């Protein structure tokens, strides 16, 4: 990739929308590389790390978080104009995040459920990925992103090659690492087969099923997997639906799975006991 000035370092910004900050923290968690990174990039805007501010233009802009409130709509368009390469980082920015579960629900009920005065809360009815609004040049998946993939992307930026963000199943990583399949070996439902790898197969390595935080891989046969989950292992349709209703639920084809399997009815507290009166009772309806 070429940049404005010959010999100049790429000017980098890191901004956030609705998110937990974990992905931008991953930048600061590159303990071994951080001081080398700042020698290859001019970090001109990164509020979590520096008080020095800039409004761009950026050669590379890392965007964390989902578009989730009215002001975000204009802000992302404006930021897109001010950067050459826009990289979304993490499940919120690439898939809408866990907060996108409200996209199936009743937004007003959501607000009222948490806030005593919902009329003061300004959020959009849906939490959506950045790519729903502007052109995205590259994306780092994951909740949070993987530090190795982040370094790979930075390296690709420096060397000008295509980042090797390989689109294959988590299973591939499991098998290479000699991790025993938790579905076959233990009967634990696992989304690894339909999820893009990059995490290093953490969940199966830790004895549990993948929960899809890197999002669906290309041509993910989520429907086939959902049928298998329902047919084997004594699971209800709702159980299967909740498997897909995770941190990347709003990405197709997981989104269709959640919808086809009944949406998020369970989140509306059907069958729930009455709300408790004590503690923060006044903060709920």
């Amino acid at each position: 990739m070429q940049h404005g000035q010959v010999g100049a370092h790429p000017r980098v910004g890191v901004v956030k929308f609705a998110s937990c900050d974990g992905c931008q923290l991953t930048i600061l968690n590159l303990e071994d590389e951080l001081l080398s990174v700042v020698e290859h990039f001019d970090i001109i805007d990164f509020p979590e790390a520096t008080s020095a501010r800039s409004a761009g233009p950026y050669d590379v802009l890392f965007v964390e978080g989902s578009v989730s409130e009215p002001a975000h709509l204009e802000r992302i368009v404006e930021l897109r104009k001010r950067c050459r390469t826009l990289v979304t980082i993490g499940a919120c920015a690439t898939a809408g995040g866990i907060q996108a579960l409200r996209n199936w629900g009743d937004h007003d009920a959501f607000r009222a459920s948490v806030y005593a005065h919902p009329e003061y809360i300004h959020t959009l009815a849906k939490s959506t990925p950045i790519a729903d609004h502007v052109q995205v040049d590259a994306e780092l998946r994951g909740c949070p992103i993987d530090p190795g993939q982040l370094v790979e992307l930075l390296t690709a930026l420096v060397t000008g090659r295509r980042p090797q963000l390989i689109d294959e199943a988590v299973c591939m990583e499991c098998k290479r690492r000699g991790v025993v399949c938790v579905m076959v070996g233990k009967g634990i439902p696992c989304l690894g087969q339909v999820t893009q790898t990059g995490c290093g197969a953490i969940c199966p390595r830790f004895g549990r099923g993948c929960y899809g935080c890197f999002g669906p891989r290309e041509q993910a046969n989520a429907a086939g997997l959902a049928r298998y989950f329902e047919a084997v292992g004594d699971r209800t349709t709702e159980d299967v639906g909740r498997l897909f209703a995770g941190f990347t639920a709003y990405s197709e084809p997981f989104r269709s799975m959640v919808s086809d399997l009944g949406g998020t009815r369970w989140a509306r507290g059907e069958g729930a006991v009455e709300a408790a009166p004590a503690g923060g009772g006044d903060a709920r309806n």
Partner: protein
Amino acid sequence: MHGTEVPKGADERLYEVTELTRVEGEGSLRLRVRDGKVVEASLGIFETPRYFEQIVVGRTPDEVIDIVARICGICPIAYQMSAVHAFEDLFGVAIDPAVRALRRLLYCGEWIESHALHIYLLHAPDFLGYESAIAMAADHRETVEKALRMKKAGNHLIGILGGRSVHPVSVRVGGFSRVPRRRELEAHRPALAESLELAKETVRLTASLPMPAFAREPRVVSLRHPDEYPYNDGRIVSSDGLDLRPSDWGEAFEESHVERSNALHARAKDGKGVYLVGPAARVVLAADQLHPVARELLAETGMAELIRTNIYASIVARAVELVHALAEAIDIIDAYRPPAEPMVAWTSRPGVGAWATEAPRGLLFHRYEVDERGRVAAAQIVPPTSQNQAAIERDLVVAAPNVIDLPQAEATVRLEQMIRSYDPCISCATHFLDLRIEEED
């Protein structure tokens, strides 16, 4: 720096930072002084709410543990811990002592990572006059490298136990989905031992920093355990005699959505108003339970009293806790024998489960109602920053006389520094705080 002076009349000054930097999440600072008196002091929060208390409804306890971690990328373990203990308390799960030790070790990892991050990358630049640790590295490369080594030691410890440092995956009701082998932990011991030495230097370094003048008598609240420095367990105590089960936070405190600030503040029901949680509160209330290494260093600094009264000195408290977390982590590793099973079996039962643990930033309370099907029906999550928010605003008022004679820009930086002393975690706070004062009519 985004401090601007807005003349509003002959003797009115506005100290304003529209977007606080080097804090977690998006917030603003506003202090208006007229005729030498503070007429407005606020920590504005404009982070977008994400409705976690609703997102967890309908989910199983283990799903909730995964979900609430996402409230905060810096202290996900704190959220997992308060949640897992709340459920285990409700279900009557007795965890293996080795699992209890591993939970503590996991928390040590988070404290190390979070405190090292805050001390060096977010806070120290204030004291030394830099805009960031990156800029600071130009003059103090070795110091920043050491900070990164400590931070890495904490992150790596979390990685061993939970797969990754941000949003680790192994915490489950009843234990862990997988526990480490002895050799995995032992392999990390040298890095922790090296970091412990660096942390000791950190205590001395932070104690030598110029502390801006500040004095107030806070009411402090934290967990306290008879045998150990508080992490996952203990009773909720205060400097003025509160003493509660960790599940009973709601008996003494409540949150309300205050229209004036459109923020859910936590406050004491006894009418005594604001209180302080976090490293300074813990050091005040549990210094005697610190690891001997940390306790001695605290004594060496002679700053115990300053930590109580001067919020700027919380950086020293954080450094002392950094030492503690590293020393305790090493002890836990040395004594570690894997549990017979990583997880004990449990059965859901309907009812209310609640618990409080000590996040790096202070007391974190969770409360869940679980229905007959084993799903969460309602949730309440009270993070430390919401409990501290009233204290922050009160301290802005206290700080005002000290800064009013300084040049405007310097004064604003000083106020920002004071806010950063709390290590506010706005992403955490936001799922229940409102964002925009100006949209209110």
